[in-house]
């Protein structure tokens, strides 16, 4: 198709160092080894069997000794439901707060199932209908009138005609009228082109993975007709505090290096504290499981914990003594927790007075928080 060549034009030269290769390129070896070892039935046009796709995401060791690295560390149950959904030719909706690896999972699913994760529609408030259906090459259109050659297919249209997996990012950001054009595609599996009196019918193997941020509900809430076409999988936040502390400190380290911040020697205590506060408020229960708490309206995701710690480090480096101290993170935490000035403030105060005040070794932190909350 003509369009593939246009896309190819913007793709990097072979051999050039791209900043971030696609999943199917980065893990080409693993995919190849899996395909070789995979003797289970594959749905039409799938590169791997559902079982192998699940293994690709969750990691494992193949009989020939090839080690498959885990791409998504999380409940296997979720991965299985996601893969099965694609196998039953239902569309898959990945929900979760920001920073729960929705896009990551969707990219790897597409790479494992279709071997191509680039059929992507990025959802924004300005996503036009052309991005979901098709557009026109106006020079061609004016020169030769409407024809198949003048048509510029969307990634979705290409996925349909080639039986591939398409991806839609941030589905709920797309305006409702554009969202609605997905309904026909998902239920009738066809995309009419009335201008040409033609249609594009989806080939077996076509499917759609959408991601949406479930804190953005209400931005462009999916209509129930569209919602019904999706199976929903909610990706959770990290399960254990240690895993989360690990993620935060690793990310903070990377960011800190790129910002040329000096490494903080005793940062880990404060990172642990930030993660604990975030987790407790998010889960609505203290780590020891003894006291319930109200949850604030903010998401308090891992990504936010990272930014709180990073800005704390910057404070400590530029205005403090270079050591991350409670006072450096307190203001950041307050900003992340108190989104709604009335309700969240009560939540935060309650948390301070009933949990933080009594906790051993948290005196400094309590005082710092009192200072910034006052």
């Amino acid at each position: 198709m003509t369009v593939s060549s246009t896309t190819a034009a913007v793709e990097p030269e072979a051999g050039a160092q791209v900043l971030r290769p696609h999943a199917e390129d980065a893990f080409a070896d693993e995919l190849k080894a899996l395909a070789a070892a995979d003797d289970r039935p594959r749905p039409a046009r799938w590169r791997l069997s559902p079982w192998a796709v699940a293994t690709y995401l969750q990691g494992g060791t193949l009989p020939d000794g090839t080690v498959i690295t885990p791409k998504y560390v999380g409940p296997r149950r979720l991965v299985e439901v996601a893969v099965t959904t694609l196998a039953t030719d239902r569309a898959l909706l990945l929900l979760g707060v920001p920073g729960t690896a929705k896009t990551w999972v969707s990219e790897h699913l597409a790479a494992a199932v279709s071997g191509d994760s680039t059929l992507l529609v990025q959802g924004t408030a300005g996503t036009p209908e052309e991005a979901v259906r098709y557009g026109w090459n106006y020079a061609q259109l004016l020169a030769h009138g409407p024809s198949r050659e003048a048509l510029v297919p969307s990634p979705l249209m290409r996925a349909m005609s080639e039986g591939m997996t398409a991806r839609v990012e941030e589905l709920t950001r797309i305006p409702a009228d554009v969202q609605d054009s997905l309904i026909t595609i998902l239920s009738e599996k066809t995309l009419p082109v009335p201008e040409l009196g033609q249609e594009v019918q989806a080939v077996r193997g076509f499917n759609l993975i959408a991601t949406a941020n479930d804190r953005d509900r209400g931005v462009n809430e999916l209509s129930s007709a569209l919602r019904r076409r999706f199976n929903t999988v909610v990706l959770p936040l990290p399960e254990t505090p240690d895993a989360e502390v690990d993620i935060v400190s690793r990310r903070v380290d990377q960011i800190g290096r790129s910002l040329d911040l000096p490494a903080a020697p005793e940062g880990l205590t404060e990172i642990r504290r930030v993660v604990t506060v975030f987790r407790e408020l998010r889960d609505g229960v203290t780590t020891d499981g003894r006291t319930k708490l109200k949850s604030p309206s903010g998401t308090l995701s891992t990504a936010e914990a990272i930014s709180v710690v990073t800005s704390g480090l910057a404070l400590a480096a530029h205005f403090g003594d270079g050591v991350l101290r409670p006072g450096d993170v307190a203001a950041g935490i307050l900003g992340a927790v108190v989104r709604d000035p009335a309700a969240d403030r009560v939540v935060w105060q309650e948390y301070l007075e009933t949990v933080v005040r009594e906790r051993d070794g948290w005196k400094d932190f309590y005082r710092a928080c009192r200072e910034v909350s006052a």
Partner: protein
Amino acid sequence: MSGAVVAGARTPGRTATGPVAGPADGPWLLGVRHHGPGSARAVLAALREARPAVVLIEGPPEGDALVPLAADPGMRPPVALLAHAVDDPGRASFWPMAAFSPEWVALRWALDHDVPVRFIDLPAAHSLALKEPAPEGPGEGPERAEHAQEEVTPVVDPIRVLAETAGYDDPERWWEDVVEHRSSGGDHGSPGVDGTGRGGIADDGDAASEGARPGGTPGEALAPFVALAEAMSALREAYGDGGQPRDAVREAYMRIQLRAARKEFGDDVAVVCGAWHVPALAARTTLAADRALLKGLPKVKTDLTWVPWTHRRLARQSGYGAGIDSPGWYGHLFEAADRPIERWMTKVAGLLRDEDRPVSTAHVIEAVRLAETLAALRGRPLAGLGETTDAVRAVMCEGSDVPLALVRDRLIVGESLGEVPDTAPAVPLQRDLTRSQRTLRLKPEASERQLDLDLRRETDAARSHLLHRLRLLDVGWGDPVAGPGSTGTFRESWRLSWEPELHVRVAEAGVWGTTVLTAATAKAASQAVAATALADVTALAEHCLLAELPDALPVVMKALADRAALDADVGHLADALPALARSLRYGDVRSTDTAALTEVAAGLAERICVGLPPACTGLDPDGAEALRGRVEAVHGAIGLLDTGAEPGQGLRGRWDAVLHKLAARDTVAGIIRGRATRLLLDEGRLPEDEAARLMGLALSPGTPPADAAAWIEGFVGGTSGGGMLLIHDERLLGLVDAWLTGVPADLFTDVLPLLRRTFSAYEPGVRRTLGELVRRGPVPEGARRDDAFPVTGGFGPGLDRARADAVEPVLRLLLGRPPEPAEAAV
């Protein structure tokens, strides 16, 4: 092996497969999983085919007499056979049976076909005697041991071993796949283990799948049991008694019973027992050896009866040790005629629709498809509970666990409640009650009478506890009434009247436990978990203290703390606190340990301190009035809670800070501001000058008159002695007076009702004095300054010595000082 089954099975029961399940002519040893619907179906099929002359069931032999009741139309499972020691009803064991329990199915089949039924387990007389005098609570004991085979025991879990051998991580799932899902008559005959591709499958698993293959040959219904028995034999060879030494005794007894039955009925005997016991029952031992094992067992006098049971208590999560996770799901599997997944999804959809979630038929279709594909991906022969739940979450619940919790509660566990006919013997609770009535010398009499208790006396305290516990169990024998005159916390008055229908109530309450104490504890705990409103839980906490249920208290306190933490309405918290503070006082009187309660109450007060100031703004008059009452109540409660601390410290200090904030903040409703000021003034936490300044501020011309009137009501209104304050502090009165005369005429009618409400509540004497003071007008400033004595607010200038002397003797009398001689001479 399977060949032998088919060949040897011309005559029903002649399975001819070795010593375990089918020596020629029976007996048929039907090993089951307790509460397994698949086992139940298999047992039914086997009984239909074998038509035994007698059915032996694992259970206490004392229950034989109660068997006919199972056929009573008034009997509806889930029910439980309850055995308890006559002298100590707290020592009890339950054998629960649901409609899908193999034991129940066998029982009903036998009754329907006029086949005698015997229970063959170790008599309850022994098992209860062997049982430790119960700290474990009901539901443990033999039942526990019996089910230990399926549960994770520290010793060895045979089913787990089998499951792990077959590559499963969850023993329940393995059993479901290999046994339950395949013995439903051959519909799902495709081998479960073979197709998964999981390596290292045990031979036993293969044997099971072979045996269950549909073929339509006679003897087929018995085949699964043969295979299962072989697997169990292999296991028992490896693990011996599996860490349950008492099993040997029980099995010896079962063998003796089996022998007796064979002597009486020939070999047409069917035995329904836990699969684990099958090899032991088939073992060849001598009668003498078995008798020797049973020698010298302790014995207690026991009684048995049927009691109603619930699905919830069958479920493991309710704390009754032996049980299953998903009785509702099992019940469904057993009842569903065909297409269990489709029917289940339809049920789920119905439930979600009733809860106003839009679930269409298309959702049901997609959910079924997803569940089945998931099962295929996971290599299971049929979608199980895990797959259906995942599918329901992804398709019908939009990935959310909230509606899923509803499904779990209502369907997977289920709310089924059993029934027992009235002819069933009395429950142990009744006996326990009778016993307590005797020891406490409280006769149940129909005629009404009043009972006054002094809680400092031991017997009276015990009586009070009993009556409170019974009230908690809805056995309304006594009603608390206001005592005669005395309001001390150590007195209690009851009106007693025993109505005949209370016996029925006691029988109903028997679900909760075998003694009044345990039943009341169990019920209180369950109510605490179920309660939605904070106030309900506080009331319950109070009740627990009154009824002395120390074991229920932690649960109630946990529920209370949780509700309090999540309740966003500070009003609810404020309503709850006074009851808690009161409870603490009861605790003092009755010397109960109230440390947990204190902690919860302090936490509650803490939350109120944080949440109250924002809650006091933007209120309409009614809301403000209600909140004012709460502020007062909380003030009183905090006074009770924090008696030790210095003023200005701890909880008190924080509360004072809150009151200061309320008094000073303009956006707070006037009536609350006034009240807060007054409370601080009364506590001496606010200098009088400051109070006057605040009053002046509230009554200054800029304030809308209605607001100012509300402030006045808050400050001096009600029965709080505000009138006296005005009489004695002329400055304040002057402020009110000046404000009132400054109210414009057209607004005066607006504030009049408020003022009337404030002042009409005063006593006539106070009103008159106030009137006189106002008529006299403010004391001229000059008069004050000229006077030699400093004038206290509310007093006229100068001192009338003669009148003062006249009061003095009475004053001395009041203060308890003898009249001084010098004075007496005057």
